[in-house]
């Protein structure tokens, strides 16, 4: 069954990591809805939220391919954990004196904010889950959208410690000690 999955990943904040992740997703032909990445409570680490569309098997394959990347520390599919997900959108919509009040009413109903007014347009900022943002955008399309910018979804699983919670007492490290190479003979029976 094809549906949207939310993958969240903890990655090292090194140059080229974003490139490697995007490259992996592209070459394996996965259907990406959105990617959002930002810093977190621990320095030198970032959190990525990737919304992928597909059936369970192919999304699990995407997850495993990304998990293989050296700089990806942890990656989980939180779709089935009833996550809290939000995205933000800024919409510059055409607004004439005759349409402005109707737009303001819609904005109120959606508990969103108008952050800029000009003689012929308004900029609206809205936050909500993907469905809410989609619906608002569709409603405003009728008035004429000048510009639209969406951030992509970020999400947290509900409840206490989750798969991407970092334990302050157990910092994320995997230290590899140097082992002097032994004299090896050719493998043989």
């Amino acid at each position: 069954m094809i549906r949207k999955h939310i993958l969240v990943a903890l990655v090292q904040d090194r140059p080229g990591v974003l490139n490697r992740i995007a490259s992996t997703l592209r070459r394996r032909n996965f259907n990406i809805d959105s990617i959002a990445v930002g810093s977190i409570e621990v320095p030198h680490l970032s959190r990525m939220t990737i919304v992928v569309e597909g059936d369970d098997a192919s999304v699990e394959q995407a997850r495993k391919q990304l998990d293989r990347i050296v700089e990806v520390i942890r990656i989980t599919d939180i779709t089935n954990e009833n996550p809290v997900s939000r995205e933000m959108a800024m919409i510059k919509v055409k607004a004439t004196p005759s349409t402005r009040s109707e737009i303001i009413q819609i904005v109120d109903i959606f508990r969103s904010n108008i952050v800029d007014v000009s003689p012929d347009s308004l900029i609206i900022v809205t936050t909500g889950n993907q469905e809410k943002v989609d619906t608002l955008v569709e409603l405003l399309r009728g008035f004429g959208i000048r510009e639209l910018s969406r951030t992509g979804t970020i999400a947290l699983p509900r409840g206490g410690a989750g798969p991407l919670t970092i334990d302050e007492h157990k910092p994320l490290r995997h230290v590899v000690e140097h082992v002097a190479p032994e004299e090896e003979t050719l493998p043989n029976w």
Partner: protein
Amino acid sequence: MMKTGAEILCECLIKEGVEVIFGFPGGVLLPLYDTLPKYPELRHILVRHEQGAAHAADGYARVTGKIGVCLATSGPGATNLVTGIANAYLDSVPVLAITGQVNTSFIGKDAFQEIDITGITVPITKYNQLVLDTGDIASAVREAIHVAQTGRPGPVLLDIPKDVFQNKTEFIFPEKIDLPGYKPKLFGHPSQIKKAADLINSAERPVIIAGRGVNISLAFPELKELAEKSQIPVVTTFLGIGCFPESHVLSYGWLGMHGMGYANKAVHSSDLLIAIGMRFDDRATGGTSTFAPQAQIVHIDIDAAEIGKNISADVPIVGDVKNILQVLNKQLTKREHIIWLSQLDEWRSLHPATDIREHENVLPQYIIRQIHEATKGDTIICTDVGQHQMWAGQYFFYDKPNSFVSSGGLGTMGFGLPASIGAKIGAPNETVWCLCGDGGFQMTIQELATIAQENLDIKIAVFNNGWLGMVRQWQELIYSKRYFGTKLYNPDFVKIAEAYGIEGVRVTKKIDVKPAIQKSMSHKGPFLIEFVVEPEENVYPFVPPGKIIVEFLEMPSPTGSRNK
């Protein structure tokens, strides 16, 4: 102690056990090439094309199990490595590619011989890094080599700018490095192993498919114990050839598009497949929807992403093959499969894949069998890509592990000659034969100079049929003999060898095959034999693309078609 970046690189490589670097110099590498002579523990082999350096590092790594190191300059030197790196990636070979880069101040300005090799090699490396500070070289080398050699091995690349080589910094070898995202799973889950053991102990028609993972993990005794204790026939993949001695009574060849018919039949009729260190590549499985319809599948592999990628597994076990088999073998009960094995023996007699028919011309299969007799199988065989490669798998019997060096996943023509250089340097006391077709040989023919300069005792057999054989075969069988772009004009290969100072002989008659092989074996030093072979010979069995692996085409016999 203040050292330059170049000195730090050399000292780190030595500490990691590197003894050989296959390289080709260039402008940005001058500081490094000025430093290398100070470290005689690092033997530098000058190749003639960077692709040769990459393939030599690959061949070296396959034969020794150690990491192979290749070195190229910026720009065109780096891009010439790309094919070799991709080849190592698809066959999971640990290779470290070091490329010079323009000065840090020139990066991003389309400078002379500048190329974003780090960006280009992202899809074909396990890990790569542009090292922008001299103080980062040591940890970059340690990280790269650790990642290349552990878990599922693979190529890594370090891109080092010229001024980073030249600058000095305090050098302390990093005994500890931190890779929080890289923890290969080494031990299989005990409950999964138990499930697998239960299935093996109750299966009626089990088959083991052993791949290159067994070679990487050095799990030869464990595989033997599993096969012998439970009396299970062992079929290998093409790259798994040699992980189980082919003279063993339980060895039943290799499966796939050009594999043995009886191996394909065994896999197709089995009720339990134990897939060890293999990835169900499309050459091995044929059509995936019709693969092994009656079998439950136990899939043991260190790479979780391979499990379920092409074929779904009933009992997936992620971990190192050797560790898993050690635990699994303890849970097996002694069993017998007399009826199943005799069925396989019957199939083997109905579809013999190793008979050589009588022919007055020189048959490539005959040559390979003669090489086996002359060496008694005690040699490393490096092949290029094409028909001769398939025949090398079919007509030679491999009992020693890591004695078959061949480009499987990428199928790179030109791999054979430089890989044999790496193999000979890695295993100087072993006999090394390099088998090439006339097409592939000419792709890296310049490495004959490397062989001559280093005086490497490699026996080179060129199978000259005047065609790009494998493509011609497909044009014959699938495109109704519409030969286009496959007929080769060839030079006199013996004269070319002699121009490089390498002795050579041409064989055109069957009666001269054996003496030529004998002559090359007793000659001390490199030797080339050009075999002029039967021009339009086909590789059988052949499973046409998309078909079920049991729908193989066989050699049409004089008395009528033996197609199944």
